[in-house]
């Protein structure tokens, strides 16, 4: 009985192994470049998980172009720009129809130009510099909004809703992303008649903010709010130390604060009066979001780590949508289809490429944290 069952299972396995590719045709390969090891891995690893999940769901639903399977080839570029360029070459040599990847501009700039040269579209899941499509070219697409949009959104909120006039700005001086965020934030604050009373700096990897906090405490006139331009690693650390020093002023930031660390590191008592702009995903209950979170939990056994997981999921979704509309995997046809994307219902909000800058027109959520609880305050739309 057992033997018979085993035999049957083996036969079934063989049948599946031989039949499905024959029916489906050649797989459609996507090259996913991410830093799975090294400093960026807390951002990039979830993004690749999201990307693979999307491909799996699409394949379960019957694949693309008459049953062809979507294959996401993950390439670890080790938080190293040289490895990013090598990874791009490797992906292109494997004959991928599109590339995707990265949560940071620096690495996109190392890889994407090689795709551009070969006429293969590259979609970044998480890099937010608004100049990216200009720098790389017409085969470059962004899933997230630009840094200018998220900075303007939180600057508007700081002045109009929080009523802050004197504002302190802390900037992580080691990244293009955090510097750009502060630049756009200060620009908008000044336009709105606010005043920057203190500018202070730190570096990614800094753990101790005691010196900057003592200065923040002693700043005259007293700041009404502090903007912290940081990536997730420093988000919880800075909040914890500022609150422990007894400072109660509102803390505002961008999507670098979109991490559980903002509440878990300081604890619910200290995680108070924090506001950040981010991808419309956290605390959102659109059907796309609910379905994504459920599928992610089922696949990986834990909820999505951060918004980058959702953005990776969206990157593959966006490419698959374009392949469907193009009806082919040809580079030029795929590029044109991507550029023609209008109202694609992504987990992180609707994506349309209607602006001359090539940055998607996407809503920005303003999230508040009170006693360790997240809440969507508003959704800001770019003009």
């Amino acid at each position: 009985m057992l033997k018979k069952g085993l035999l049957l299972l083996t036969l079934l396995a063989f049948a599946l192994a031989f039949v499905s590719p024959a029916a489906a045709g050649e797989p459609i390969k996507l090259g996913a470049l991410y830093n799975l090891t090294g400093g960026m891995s807390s951002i990039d690893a979830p993004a690749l998980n999201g990307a693979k999940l999307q491909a799996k769901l699409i394949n379960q639903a019957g694949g693309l172009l008459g049953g062809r399977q979507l294959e996401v080839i993950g390439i670890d570029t080790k938080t190293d720009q040289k490895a990013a360029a090598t990874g791009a070459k490797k992906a292109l040599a494997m004959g991928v129809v599109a590339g995707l990847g990265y949560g940071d501009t620096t690495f996109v700039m190392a890889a994407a130009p090689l795709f551009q040269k070969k006429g293969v579209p590259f979609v970044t899941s998480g890099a937010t510099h608004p100049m990216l499509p200009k720098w790389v070219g017409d085969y470059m697409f962004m899933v997230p909004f630009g840094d200018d949009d998220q900075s303007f959104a939180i600057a508007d909120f700081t002045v109009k809703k929080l009523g802050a006039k004197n504002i302190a700005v802390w900037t992580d001086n080691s990244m293009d992303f955090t510097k750009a965020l502060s630049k756009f934030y200060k620009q908008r604050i000044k336009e709105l008649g606010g005043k920057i009373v203190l500018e202070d700096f730190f570096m990614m990897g800094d753990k101790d903010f005691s010196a900057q906090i003592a200065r923040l405490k002693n700043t005259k006139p007293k700041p009404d709010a502090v903007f912290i331009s940081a990536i997730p690693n420093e988000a919880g650390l800075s909040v914890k130390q500022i609150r422990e020093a007894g400072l109660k002023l509102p803390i505002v930031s961008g999507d670098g604060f979109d991490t559980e660390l903002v509440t878990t590191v300081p604890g619910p008592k200290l995680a108070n009066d924090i506001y950040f702009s981010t991808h419309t995903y956290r605390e959102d209950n659109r059907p796309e979001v609910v379905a994504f979170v459920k599928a992610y939990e089922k696949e990986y056994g834990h909820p999505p780590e951060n918004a980058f997981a959702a953005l990776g999921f969206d990157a593959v979704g966006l490419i698959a949508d374009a392949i469907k509309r193009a009806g082919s995997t040809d580079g030029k046809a795929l590029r044109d289809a991507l550029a023609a994307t209008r109202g694609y219902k992504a987990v992180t909000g609707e994506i349309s490429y209607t602006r001359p800058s090539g940055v998607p027109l996407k809503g920005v959520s303003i999230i508040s944290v009170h006693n360790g609880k997240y809440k969507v305050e508003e959704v800001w739309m770019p003009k």
Partner: protein
Amino acid sequence: MGGGYIAQQIVNGLILGSMYALVAIGFSMIYGIIRLINFAHGDVVMIGAFVTLALMQVAGLPFVLVAAGALAAGAVVGVLIERGAFRPMRGAPQVTGFIASLAVSIMLQNLGILLLTAQPRNFTFPAALQKVINAGPVSFRVIDLVIMLSALGLMVLVMLLVKRTRLGMAMRATAENLDVARLMGININRTILAAFAMGSALAGIAGLMWGGKFGQIDPLLGYVPGLKSFVAAVIGGVGSIPGAILGGYILGLAEVLFVGLLPPIYSAYRDAFVFGTLIVILLIMPNGLLGSDKGERA
């Protein structure tokens, strides 16, 4: 910039310095015995932090047992590293051990990422240790006080051990001249293993403190303490345990005061100033503040 502001910055510097000193003691001990610049020392700090997290938050053990566990975990990892990576290379040029320690460090970091993922985890200490103490214009937390006192306590303990016990005598003899010590009947392997176990146990407990102070840990957290303790040890004179403590405090104070007293635009370059200080100190005193000039090995 009033007196209160400066006092607060000095306290901040002393707290940070205690942390560096705690890591630097173990680093300096290992160097003192076998002249090995052990870059994996910082990663033992990381392991100590994760073991603390596992014992405290997952297993829910009382604090004393957690501290004992962090010490034990550090010692075990130190012994394994010595047996696996450094003993086979004993007698090879110094640079070989140095490169081997870099390899061990990278292996431990990426092993951590593979096993635990690179996601930073939060780390909550008992509320009693998180309480803020206000003393005039200056404020600090109970945990900061614990770190300072334990750094000093451990220094005294290690010094007593090295100066007063048979094992300590064997360690000093081994440090002085390995071959002669062996001829005198000292079990070299056991002595070196003991130095690794002790130095790494201190790194393990430093991991507990590090997690408690900053409240967030990840598999790459050992990089900074590893590097800083190296600098602290060099400032104080490598191999000298009081030197490591002094170096740690100078480093912590220098970092905070550079940020606190210079215009904010320089805040991001704190490490550049710190390493600049290191160069100045080494130019004036090439063996560090408390180092001996006896050369590589007598």
